[in-house]
């Protein structure tokens, strides 16, 4: 846990006002060195983390020296997704591809067929572009650490482990057996 150097009495600060929540102290500008136990906690070495499948919650990352803590909200890019689709490629043309989209934001919307420009696909995803390939498409806003809001459209093709040669052979063998059985 972060430890504030300016200790305040939370009860005194409340006065006579009734509160629903006790807010964690926000005076985090100056921090003191973590005790060793806190560092161990970060890596789950001495707590019951090994029995918990939950993440480390809103525990702040370790700052084990006297530092000014950067604003947690401004230290990272923030993405707000407006719409998400899951697409399946149906046809690849010279400069475009046809896909069927399922609305992942609102599953009540019917699937729709779209034609997208190949330019929309990241270069390193192009080898994955083939009939039957799955991709994830989202549009939304991204707020940069500098405060700039950008409108973004992101397409990422699903990546799955490549089958080993032995697995491929086994699949073909099973297919041959099945075909032979059906021809009888």
């Amino acid at each position, binding site marked *: 846990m972060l430890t504030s150097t300016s200790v305040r009495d939370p009860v005194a600060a409340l006065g006579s006002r009734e509160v629903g929540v006790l807010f964690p102290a926000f005076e985090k500008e100056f921090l003191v060195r973590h005790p060793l136990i806190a560092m161990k906690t970060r890596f789950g070495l001495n707590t019951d983390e090994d029995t918990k499948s939950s993440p480390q919650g809103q525990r*702040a990352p370790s700052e084990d020296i006297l530092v000014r803590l950067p604003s947690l909200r401004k230290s990272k890019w923030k993405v707000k997704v407006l719409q998400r689709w899951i697409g399946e490629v149906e046809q690849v043309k010279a400069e475009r591809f046809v896909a069927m989209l399922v609305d992942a934001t609102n599953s009540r919307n019917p699937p729709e067929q779209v034609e997208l420009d190949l330019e929309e696909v990241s270069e390193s995803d192009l080898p994955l572009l083939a009939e039957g390939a799955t991709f994830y498409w989202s549009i939304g806003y991204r707020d940069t650490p500098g405060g700039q809001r950008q409108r973004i459209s992101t397409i990422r093709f699903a*990546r799955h482990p490549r089958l080993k040669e032995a697995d491929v052979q086994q699949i073909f063998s099973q297919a041959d057996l099945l075909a032979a059985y059906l021809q009888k």
Partner: protein
Amino acid sequence: MRTPDLDNATIVMLGSFNPTIFQPRWLGAQHLIRPEEAESAKIEIIRAEVAEFSTEWFHLQVLQNRLALSSADPGQYSPLRDLAAAMFAILSHTPVTALGLNRLFHFKMPSSESWHGVGHLLAPKELWKPIMEGPGLRTMTMEGRHKQPGGGLLHIKVEPSAKVEQGVYLEINEEFRASGDSESEGAQWVPGRLFQHWDVTMKFAEETADYLLGLVKS
């Protein structure tokens, strides 16, 4: 769903891991991430005891007994599931004893009254006033089973946000345990569970947030 100020999805696994395997270049060599992502990943530490690095869209921390894969980009939550499933389709003999699907939200409440209202609603103060001055909710975790057949064990945590002023932190965890002997079963059960439950858990988390915050008058 109401829009959170911060949104995060995390896949946590418990078991016995070899952290040094989990390097960006290994993921790149297995074609599980883009080559450029493997090259540009920001490595915090890679040692026998711990591996930790991040790319533009996910963060991975692996200890010898725990793995956590997370993303703060809701547009990448499906690829996050695919990545976790693919890693353990390859490392299918890795003993994994538990799988946790997690969604973390920070919501800024519209008013001080509604913010305190969350605490009043979930932890009425009348019970505590005889023994405390100024009682307030710091943290609450509820545990229960998912109503959906085949669902896991749910933990729903509510706290005041430490990251968003006048905010509420919600953590929804659904946990699945290996059914048999994890040594022999390895991680073979993990990809199936991920594909079966990930979208359901993510949707459930959004509905839970809407439900809980909807109970409070704004």
